[in-house]
């Protein structure tokens, strides 16, 4: 009796598993053929296009990271020029920033990326590096991409840096100078370290923008992630590769955005004097901020 029951049960389980598998297969079939999901969210298409799109992912990351990395010193230089005492230096920096920020990046990409190779001088300059390739792109292409991205981002960073430096109270520079520091030293050991903390969130937001902007290089057929996705889309008449590429962008931009938010909170806390960063001493309680008698004793003993 017991054995019979067991057999019946196991047969039942087998049947229901079969039915479940069948259900999912049917569901998948329906999903693949439905008008919306089949066009934008086709799993089979995603699997097919994944290796192609993924191929462009390191290219996009390299563009964004190196472009941004190069933009930092450029932006800092521009920020100092904007604050220069000598007016013509300020004019140069202001004009540069105005032109870059006042024109579409797409325009800058087309003009510089397609324009530079038209100059014989540029071709000659690139000649010695012609056998260098990275991620299937030649040196000249990388050079132009980094040039455009860093030159563009630097203009935006310059404003962030300048505002950051000028937000540091004047007394900080005065205190540093009164201790015998030169302006340049005061800038590097007192002002800039404080500025970095303040501008970190905004600069990181700038990085996120830059990462997304790399997609514009598709128009000059620079082989980054978006271009691969477009090829796949054109080849298959299906939008799924583009949704897939969106996921790749989000993979970077969402965590980066969370970091920005966290940094901003931390900064707000530090400015109000309540943060505890790493191994810091405990916060002062109200009692210890008042005059404690033994402190005077310490003073008298030492003197």
């Amino acid at each position, binding site marked *: 009796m017991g054995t019979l029951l067991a057999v019946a049960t196991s047969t039942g389980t087998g049947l229901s598993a079969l039915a479940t598998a069948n259900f999912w297969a049917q569901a998948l079939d329906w999903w693949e053929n439905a008008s919306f999901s089949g066009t934008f969210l086709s799993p089979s298409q995603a699997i097919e296009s994944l290796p192609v799109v993924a191929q462009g992912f390191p290219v996009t990351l390299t563009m964004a990271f190196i472009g941004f990395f190069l933009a930092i010193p450029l932006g800092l230089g521009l920020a100092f020029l904007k604050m220069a005492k000598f007016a013509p230096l300020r004019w140069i920096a202001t004009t540069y920033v105005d032109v870059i920020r006042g024109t579409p990046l797409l325009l800058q990409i087309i003009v510089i990326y397609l324009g530079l190779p038209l100059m014989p001088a540029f071709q000659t300059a690139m000649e010695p590096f012609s056998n260098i390739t990275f991620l299937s792109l030649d040196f000249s292409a990388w050079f132009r991409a980094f040039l455009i991205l860093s030159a563009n981002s630097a203009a935006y960073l310059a404003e962030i840096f300048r505002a950051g430096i000028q937000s540091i109270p004047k007394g900080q520079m005065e205190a540093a100078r009164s201790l015998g520091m030169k302006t340049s030293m005061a800038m590097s050991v*007192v002002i800039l370290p404080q500025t970095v903390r303040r501008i970190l969130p905004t600069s990181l937001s700038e990085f996120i923008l830059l990462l997304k902007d790399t997609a514009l290089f598709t128009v000059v057929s620079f082989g980054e992630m978006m271009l691969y996705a477009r090829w796949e889309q054109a080849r298959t008449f299906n939008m799924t590769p583009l949704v897939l590429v969106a996921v790749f962008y989000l993979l970077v931009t969402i965590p980066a955005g969370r970091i920005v938010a966290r940094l901003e909170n931390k900064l707000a806390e530090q400015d109000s004097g309540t943060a505890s960063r790493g191994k810091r001493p405990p916060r002062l309680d109200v009692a210890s901020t008042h005059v404690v008698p033994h402190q005077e004793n310490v003073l008298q003993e030492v003197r």
Partner: protein
Amino acid sequence: MSKAIVEIKDLKKTFANEEVLHSINLQVHKGEVVCILGPSGSGKSTLLRCINLLEVPTSGEVWVDGTQINAKNTDINKARRHLGMVFQQFNLFPHKTAQGNVELALTKVLKLSKDEASAIAIEQLAHVGLADRADYYPSQLSGGQQQRVAIARALAMEPKVMLFDEVTSSLDPELVRDVLNVMRDLARGGMTMVVVTHEMGFAREVADRVVFMDEGVIVEEGSPEDIFEKPKNERTKNFLGHLIEQN
């Protein structure tokens, strides 16, 4: 009298066409404590800031220990090492601990090793009664503690003259005493000090000489007894009278 360590000759300072200091002459001798009193806007802070060239005099001469510091060929960064300055707003470096604040100029300006700097920093913080706060950041210290760190930071450079610019003006009354105690000890130790202050009690007790300024001129100067007990000038009398009424 020993020779003047600070000498100001015919100093004038103009801000945007308005002369805020008119022909100031002042000498400070070695070991002397000079308190500068006067109503707000009298130019006393500007005068103090002219001594270490945070404000550049429009004309006149500022001599510190035999060097004319507003001369063209003077290395002001070197000259400033002999002039400790303490500010009303403390101006501690918020990204450094108390100890880091004291060490910074020692390692960067005097090029001392990290160990030497740290030994000096700990010693100076102990002098101002804050040995146990060495690892605290300025935001974790009270105003009075911050100001004492600022004093330690200036003293660590072994200045020949200390300049105090209304150092207790932004402190809660109960925190003022600690800072004044440190300054009093410093004066007793023989430090040359120029103190811009509103603390009449401190000026009366500690100052060797009191200078009263109004509207960009030195109206009257003399011993604390002279200035506080029998002021000669009407403006001095008025100013001190107001203060007595307030208290």
